[in-house]
């Protein structure tokens, strides 16, 4: 796969480039925007709305609750303190420790899940331009080797992620994308070497 990044001075030319790329047969799933400020979905590109990391949050919450219960109730059970007729496993303390650890694991799980779903951290060099931090807009196109369809998400509609250019050789797809972005007003093109 090769990634090509076009740097645009304004929102309008970046949007024009995306429209032309889609019109040329590139799939929405191949195109993304790089911005230093978030824009609503569809303003530049469309992304899959569905995210899965919240399941990890829930899973971690349950694991944390089990860990908290084991810590509080297990401690009382393993090291019993006989206090009159009070139960060995005290209800309120066990509830409090269970709650706190469940929340701790859920918070940590949210961050871990977020990074996993973003595919971060990434330490290898990827196409990027510091001008994006200064307000420029990056439009990135991922070129797949000729004949290989773009991987679809489950929620994608048929045809949305298999662009008509996929049958062309990668080199030709790349030059077409570059040409379209230049015509739309790209300041420069940053390309990644094929991996």
């Amino acid at each position, binding site marked *: 796969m090769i990634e090509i990044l076009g740097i645009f001075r304004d929102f309008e030319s970046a949007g024009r480039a995306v429209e032309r790329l889609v019109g040329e047969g590139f799939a929405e799933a191949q195109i993304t925007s790089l911005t230093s400020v978030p824009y609503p979905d569809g303003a530049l590109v469309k992304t899959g709305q569905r995210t899965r990391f919240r399941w990890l949050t829930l899973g971690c919450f349950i694991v944390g609750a089990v860990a908290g219960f084991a810590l509080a109730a297990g401690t009382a059970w393993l090291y019993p303190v006989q206090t009159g007729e009070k139960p060995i496993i005290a209800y309120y303390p066990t509830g409090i420790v269970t709650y706190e*650890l469940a929340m701790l694991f859920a918070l940590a799980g949210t961050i871990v899940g977020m990074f996993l779903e973003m595919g971060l951290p990434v*330490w290898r060099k990827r196409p990027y331009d510091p001008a994006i931090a200064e307000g420029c807009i*990056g439009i990135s196109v991922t070129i797949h080797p000729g004949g290989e369809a773009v991987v679809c998400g489950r929620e994608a509609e048929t045809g949305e992620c298999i662009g008509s250019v996929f049958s062309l050789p990668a080199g030709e797809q790349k030059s077409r994308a570059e040409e379209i972005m230049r015509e739309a007003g790209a300041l420069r093109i940053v390309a990644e070497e094929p991996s």
Partner: protein
Amino acid sequence: MSEPTLPAAKSAGRMNDAMLSSLRPPTLRWYLLAFFLGAVVAWGLYAFGYMVSTDMSCTGLDRPVMWGIFIVNFVFWIGLSHSGTMVSAILRLSRANWRRPILRAAEAMTVFTVTVGALFPLIHLGRNWVFFYLIPYPNQRGLWPNFRSALLWDATAIFTYVIGSSLFLYLGMLPDLAVARDRSAGWRRTLYGALAMGWRGTAREWLIFHKASTLMAALIIPVAVSVHSIVAWDFAVTVVPGWHSTIFPPYFVIGAILSGVAAVITLMVIIRKAFHLEEYLTPLHFDNMGKLLLVIALLWSYAYFVEVQTTWYAHEPIEWEVFSFMAGKYTPALLLMLVGNSLLPLTALCFRRIRRSVGAMLAISLLVNVAMFIERYLIIVPSLSHKNMPFVWGTYFPSWVELSVTAGAFAGFALMYTLFAKCFPMVALTDVRELEARKVLVPFARAELPSIAGKEAGDD
């Protein structure tokens, strides 16, 4: 490179310059401040070292008052930590746009205040070198900590809150770290690059980031409430007169939010002045924070009234004795507390002119926190001084050791905050720029409409 034509009211470059101004090389004044704060911290550490090398007799603690100013500090600092993250989370969930410039100051405050607060139970231990007995692990004594103790609930809750608040702060900084990375060189670039984790700002990254921020905000609020409720239970689950009260948890939570909101206002004034952020921290922000402080002061006054009124009606001898002792011996402190936490905010903050005056807001917010420190003192010391058995009634004055450690804690917080401000963006840069981007109007027929209408990015 020529300045890009931005989809924003102000130029992104200019906004980056202004909001990252805190990262510029330190001035002589900054070094002098850091040196002064460092010296006070060193003095506090010396006092603590003296206490460890002698014993607790160098403090003012003695029967019957075995919890003194160290525990006052603990409750005060944990209380301060509340509003930072909580206010930020509530404003984030309620999509209050004015929140954006103050988020970072509030979230960073939480992390440092809870860190300082968490040190005080350890300082108070006496035999500080065996602090690890608190940690549940299989040890040579064959004993584990007893989870029936409210102090261990504290340890669990505060650990959760420290980790949660730090993650919340880091999450909010992620896109800003990427901007800082792109605009820096040398060790700073390496540091920001490592912390930004390869963030590029793709549409998918932003989408997931916003969903995660919302979820974190929703998760951190109940944690914050639980932490101060548990601090309140340190007192309420005992049978000490004046402490054993069902209203303590909500009363503590309200007090914590009151002191926290006031501290955020104080820090806003300082950051605004120090980093010339007048354009971003405007009178509107002080106005809105003033309204918030007014509402919380009303709630605090109500809770305090309910607490005192119930005691007065019941006239339980020992309860009333504690209250009479406090009102008699600590009259000036009690009056200052009532003025600072209730009377002054309730009267002054009704006026828009005062809420929009930066100087007045600084004075009010400082007085609220002085009053809140006194309130913590008045909760702890008088109750222990006059417990159920009159033959052990006594009193308490903090010694130079305790006062020095307290001064060290204040300086330590200020030093950590100052260092943080020099190393990391103090204003939520991308949040503010997003707001500017949303302000741009485009012509539509005979009207001008927002260019990016409707919901915020990341909304479902």
